[in-house]
């Protein structure tokens, strides 16, 4: 099952794509032979627990889940399986939150948090991973990110190699045509956020590019 674990809709201030436009695009990708099963919306610094994408998801037959991308003092972090309990304990708008505390509260709440685009210059976890801070809770990082600039993937892959982390994939799309350029392939079926957290904790996944999802018969 292939999910894009990192994308932004117009709910994020720097995105210009609606959720429905993403889903239409995914339908067009499927017609070209690509296998994309769903997306996880990771809006910047927010989580709307009441937003329900079931209708759109059913209309286009694309799984739509919700997460968040938070700014911390140790770089950006992706969060999946956000619960009311977690929302009560963490101010998602706090751009200087402690990532160690975030990961701890996420785990206690049944969620999971880990570094987004760690190789990104300036705001990636690589800038902090060798500090004296105790990042023992980190066991997963975002490996493939569709918005990497020159040199950032290499930094990420060195981090993964040095620390033995598992790696996810996400497009980090802010525009329609960027959705699903990078994905995470899961060995288990995922129907909701709880399934996603469980699969991430079991580390039954790998990062892949869109090209890797193409059915063999459709490869020219």
């Amino acid at each position, binding site marked *: 099952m292939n999910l894009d674990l990192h994308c932004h809709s117009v709910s994020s201030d*720097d995105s*210009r*794509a609606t959720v429905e*436009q993403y889903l*239409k*695009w995914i339908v*067009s990708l499927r017609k*070209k032979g690509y296998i994309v099963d769903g997306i996880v919306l990771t809006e910047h610094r927010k989580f709307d627990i009441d937003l329900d994408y079931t209708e759109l998801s059913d209309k286009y037959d694309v799984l739509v889940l919700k997460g968040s991308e938070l700014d911390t003092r140790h770089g950006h972090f992706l969060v999946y399986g956000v619960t009311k309990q977690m929302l009560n304990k963490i101010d998602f708008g706090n751009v200087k939150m402690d990532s160690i505390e975030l990961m701890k509260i996420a785990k206690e709440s049944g969620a999971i948090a880990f570094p987004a685009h760690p190789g990104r210059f300036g705001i990636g976890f690589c800038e902090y991973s060798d500090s004296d801070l105790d990042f023992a809770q980190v066991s997963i990082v975002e490996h493939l990110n569709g*918005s990497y*600039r*020159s040199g950032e993937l290499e930094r990420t892959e060195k981090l993964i190699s040095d620390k033995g982390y598992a790696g996810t994939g996400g497009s980090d799309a*802010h*525009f*329609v*045509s*960027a959705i699903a350029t990078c994905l995470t392939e899961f060995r288990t079926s995922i129907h909701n956020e709880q399934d996603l957290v469980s699969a991430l904790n079991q580390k039954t996944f790998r990062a892949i590019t869109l090209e890797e999802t193409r059915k063999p018969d459709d490869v020219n």
Partner: protein
Amino acid sequence: MKYIEDIDLGDEFGPVQIEVRPDDVIDFCKTWIRDEENSKNIFNAAPTRFTDEEFAKSEGLPGAIVPGIMSMAYLARLLNTAWPDGTITQLDVVFRQLVLHNQTINLVGVVTDTVSDDSENYIECDVYIENNEGSRLVGGKARLNIPTKH
């Protein structure tokens, strides 16, 4: 002429390749920096981050940069080149990285939606300014009214 009926979601256009020459940026600034109320050109030769390498560096930039509105003009050029009979009704951009002088940039786009009914005929596109490494410096969403055969 290109008609709405001939356009499909996923159609790509471009690339238009541009060498960003400092003289072109200065010419753009001469046209752009105007006192609209008095219809006068008020550009002066005082250095700015858009026109002078050293001034830009003194502001902490890596070099002289292309004004955001000029980047938008580049994207408008891409759209007008691809759809000469279309009318741009929306161009909304996000500036993600600096566009520097003396850089080769590629303008590319892709159709992300087509709408054709009794009242309107338009396409929506993603448009990008990329550097030679394929890194996206500026991204945008555009809407164009397109002629119909009917």
